[in-house]
């Protein structure tokens, strides 16, 4: 038994651990510096292109404009745009009909039943042009950029899967699960088929 050697080995272990630890700390600091870029200004030509919603003739479902994919679906994946969407949800009075997302005078946004399809472009079209049975058009009150921000946010309220991007927290008491925690999946059993509500009319 040579105590000196044992000591040497443990010192080497210790210094290796310390080195590894500081490397990890340094690496995580580097990653932490990486910030999701925020796009504050949408160039007018981009906004005009984003306004080219391609809907199905029935007005139900459709494809987002090409530029939406070229921009990498910003309004569903960027925390800043989701936060702005959340702000717009309260500023433009969505809650007066849709409540916290569970509906009221207007239909629920998180019971899995989308009268005009679950795609973000259908939501954007509903906000922009309005829909029969009470949904007002917002195209003369909101810019294209804002309509997309709000549509992206509305989609997260009814999400069945958790999302990495989250809007800012509620200032008021939470009345339903947070947006990035798949509120629809938490609030409703996924195995039960969603029941259309009477005021939504017959399924299209």
């Amino acid at each position, binding site marked *: 038994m040579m105590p000196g050697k044992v000591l040497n080995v443990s010192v080497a272990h210790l210094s290796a651990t310390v080195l590894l630890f500081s490397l990890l700390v340094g690496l995580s600091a580097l990653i932490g510096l990486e910030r999701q870029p*925020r796009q*504050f*200004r*949408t160039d*007018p030509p981009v*906004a*005009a292109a984003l306004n080219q919603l391609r809907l199905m003739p029935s007005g139900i479902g459709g494809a987002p404009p090409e530029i939406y994919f070229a921009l990498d679906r910003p309004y569903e994946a960027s925390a800043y745009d989701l936060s*702005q969407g959340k*702000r717009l949800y309260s*500023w*433009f009075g969505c809650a007066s009909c849709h409540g916290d997302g569970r509906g009221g005078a207007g239909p629920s946004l998180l019971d899995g039943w989308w009268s005009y399809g679950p795609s973000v472009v259908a939501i954007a079209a509903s906000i922009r042009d309005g829909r029969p049975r009470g949904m007002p058009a917002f195209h*003369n*009150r*909101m*810019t294209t*950029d*804002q309509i997309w921000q709000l549509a992206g946010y509305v989609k997260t309220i009814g999400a069945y899967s958790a999302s990495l991007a989250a809007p800012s927290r509620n*200032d008021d008491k939470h009345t339903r699960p947070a947006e990035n925690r798949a509120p629809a999946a938490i609030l409703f059993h996924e195995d039960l088929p969603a029941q259309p509500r009477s005021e939504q009319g017959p399924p299209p």
Partner: protein
Amino acid sequence: MKSTSALLLLALLVSGCTGAQSILNAEGHAAIELKELILWIICVCAVVWLLVMIALVSALVRQRDPDGGAISERKAAVAISGAVGATVLVITGLTITSFYTTRALSEASPAELTIDVTAQQWWWQFTYVDANPTRAFVTANELHIPVGKVARLRLKSSDVIHSFWVPSLAGKRDLIAGRENMLTLRAERPGIYRGQCAEFCGLQHSHMALFVIAEAQADYERWAERQRGVGAEPTEAEAVAGKAVFMAKQCAACHTIRGTKASGTTGPDLTHVGSRRTIAAGLLEITRGSLAAWIADPQTLKPGNNMPLVPLTGDELRQLAAYMESLR
């Protein structure tokens, strides 16, 4: 080279004393009390520092007793108790002075007018409260108060924590969402006092300024009477067209112009925007040009603020700027 950098440093330090937004340029009741307190504390501390330095230097230069004689117990006791006594005296004195100053800050006389201040990212909304609701009015980023009168500010926030600070008039007070804080202002001399949000509140915190305009009672009354009125009906052809643009575009969804159908409440009230000194919370002086620049591209001038870029043609932009300028 050395003298140049020393000069530059001096210029930088002295620029804090220009008085535009300085506690040393105290013109309000509370600010004067606070300035006197801090000057008094600085003087006392300077004397204490000087005495300590003298004691230390004299200890260094003092010739030691060559025989190495020990200091007598009595002498040491006198020195230590003297120092402790002086310390207690100074600290107690400063505490009492500070207490009386703090007490003097709160106004004993009842407030002449009450103003609701709502801070939001990144501007100030001022609601002049009146017992008669038809005489109440809303404005933004510019506070007018009569000289020598007590104005009571009820401070609220609609998003994050902000802080109301007009260094020449009073100390800071935070505005916190969900609660109401109080601050009283009393300007002793007429003038234009710049204020600033003093609690980091997000991207455009530095562009969240306000102006307090203290004026004679008659001038204040004239201003308030004008503010109570509805937005001026434009006469110039360009401004008339601008009004139509304002109502047709997204502007009216967020801004109010009393007397028109524009009644949005999320943006600043624009009923008398042309009479204000600055736009976008102290960002630019109001001229027809700066109004057009701001409307054309708010996200380049103040990135991240909540006013969107509304696409307009050149003509529409000119007309809108003319209309905004005419709202005096």
